[in-house]
């Protein structure tokens, strides 16, 4: 049995279904992110676990205990709010000590706990300050200290870094993850920042329209997204997606796309189907910029439209002969100019294929190099 189990949670606000059949198993000590666009229901899940909202259906189990019918003050869950929700009339020390009043602890023990927690978050010496005398980053640390001072069975973080500037966010991200590992505290964080989620989490649940699309490790989300939404949501710059249609030729299945005819294989003899609509996805880093005249089965002819220099690399925006736009990542020493004709070598084994109707990924289909002698043509020639 997992440490935190969400089983079939649903929630409706004024006839709008916000969450539908949410199932999630979190292991003890894991750091989990709920990632999704705004309105996907991720904050609602967090508020349901925290007890600030009640589910319409389903159950929540934490450390072997059903908690969905308990009020928030009896759930033993630490919550860090987006705007920190520090008590403005209390000093840092009083804020951190707030929850200890409900534990059987004597004064000396409380003080010791407060000081040790403040030391953990690097706020030693700030005990007597009021929240308004602290910077945003310091306030955020107080909020975390206040939540972990109770040594809760679960820590919930609601976009805790979104009110900080980019540099501080990067720093606190690392510190928070380190602290979480040291304390071994199971944590669920809500964020809309995929970089934050990718760098901090053991696993990420991707949400859309109140449903979990995929719950997986960051790397697997990136490499093996279950559907078009996850593929498009994860990755920056975003994946190149191209709708296309299967054509069965005498040599087998082919995929005419980007002015090229790629071959299509199916594992274990799975059917492909003539005329089947697919979406081909290729990440920008799996497109390599080469010479325009390189005649290989995997090179697409394209013309550079714009180049974005990022310092360590560059993004090349190009248009293929059939008019599609593609984005590729180029190393800084080898960046083409706008207007230049280039070839884009497709790393076919990294290509992802999705069903055009269900949008689900089709792991049984494999993209293969096309025939190099076929001239680039948008229409292609039927045999």
């Amino acid at each position, binding site marked *: 049995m997992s440490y935190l189990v969400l089983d079939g949670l649903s929630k409706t606000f004024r006839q709008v279904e916000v969450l539908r059949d949410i199932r999630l198993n979190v292991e003890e000590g894991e750091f989990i992110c709920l990632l999704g666009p705004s309105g996907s229901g991720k904050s609602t899940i967090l508020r349901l676990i925290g007890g*600030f909202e009640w589910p319409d259906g389903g159950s929540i189990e934490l450390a072997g205990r059903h908690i969905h019918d308990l009020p928030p003050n009896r759930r033993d869950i630490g919550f860090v709010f987006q705007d920190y929700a520090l008590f403005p009339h209390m000093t840092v020390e009083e804020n951190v000590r*707030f929850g200890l009043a409900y534990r059987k602890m004597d004064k000396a023990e409380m003080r010791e706990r407060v000081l040790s927690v403040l030391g953990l978050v690097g706020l030693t010496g700030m005990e007597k300050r009021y929240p308004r005398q602290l910077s945003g980053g310091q306030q955020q640390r107080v909020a975390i200290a206040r939540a972990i001072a109770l040594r809760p069975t679960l820590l919930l973080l609601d976009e805790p870094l979104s009110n900080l500037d980019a540099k501080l966010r990067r720093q606190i991200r690392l510190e928070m993850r380190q602290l979480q590992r040291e304390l071994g505290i199971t944590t669920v964080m809500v964020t809309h920042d995929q970089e934050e989620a990718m760098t901090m989490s053991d696993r990420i649940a991707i949400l859309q329209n109140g449903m979990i699309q995929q719950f997986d490790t960051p790397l697997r989300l990136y490499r093996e997204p279950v559907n078009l939404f996850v593929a498009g949501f994860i990755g920056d710059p975003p994946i190149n997606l191209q709708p296309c249609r299967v054509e069965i030729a005498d040599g087998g299945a082919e995929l005419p796309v980007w002015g090229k005819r790629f071959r299509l294989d199916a594992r274990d003899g799975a059917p492909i189907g003539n005329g089947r609509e697919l979406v081909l996805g290729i990440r920008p880093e799996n497109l390599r910029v080469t010479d325009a005249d390189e005649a290989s089965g995997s090179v697409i002819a394209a013309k550079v439209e714009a180049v974005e220099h990022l310092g360590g690399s560059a993004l090349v925006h190009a248009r293929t002969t059939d008019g599609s736009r593609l984005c590729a990542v180029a190393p800084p020493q080898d960046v083409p100019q706008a207007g230049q004709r280039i070839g884009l070598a497709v790393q076919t084994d990294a290509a992802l294929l999705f069903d055009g109707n269900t949008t689900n990924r089709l792991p049984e289909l494999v993209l293969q190099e096309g025939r190099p002698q076929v001239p680039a043509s948008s229409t292609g020639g039927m045999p």
Partner: protein
Amino acid sequence: MTQSSRTTGGRRFGVGWMLLSPALAVYGIIFLLPALLLMVISFQVNAPELYLWERVYSPENYRRFYTDPYFLKVIGKTLAYCVVVVLATLVVGYLLAWSIYKARSFAKTTLITLVLTPLFSGALLQSLGWYLLLARYGPINAGLRALGWLDKPFNFLGTDAAVMIALVHAFLPFMVLSILNSLRTIPANLPDAAASLGAGSWSAFIRVTVPLTKGGMIAGSGLVFGMTLGSFATPGIVGQGKIQLLAQIIYQQAIQVFDWPFAAVISLNLLAMLGMISALLALLTRRTGGEVR
């Protein structure tokens, strides 16, 4: 560099005073001048047949006011009224403000309108309302007798309780609005934060909500205290002349006895009490660290 900036600063200072002067003139004429006049009159020996500038000066009025046990008793009674009325409006006002704060849109508007109605009706109308309700053959007497709690009609008018109830009713809107205003400035997730740290709703209310509404409570208390101190029509009507508060005494002395100097002494004492209370409340506000809004 510094010199030139200092001169411009000085010039600005002068310009500032000139720009303020219309307001200052209004203040002077409306507030300062009458107060000064009051002070001057308070030292005069009463002589209605003489012009103000022909009269003799003496501290006699003050001596009389501070040594006469009757007036000291009135001061004591008036202050006691203030304390009771402030505490009662504080409790009832907080409950009302809280229920308005928690109410949904339609109920909220309705409740606010109901709370504000006494403000529109004026002291006279309100007092007459209470007069009718509390009268010997009014609905309250009828009800209590129907329930068997009263044998014969009892005249509630002229009792301290009746006057205090009428005053609480009259001043409640000020307290409710002050508290409601500071309730609204509390971030919505503070109670949630308190709950997540283990606080039950009552504990969260006492430890978070109440301290954060201190400013509203202090402001409301100051208003109600001052208004009770100066209340005239309500104690007069609901008290049927049996309740003598400072304002009634001032009226008596100025209008009935025609002893303006003595009325001035009482007025100045009332002003002084008001000043002290305001100072005390200001101090209280500063004590709370200034984060109260």
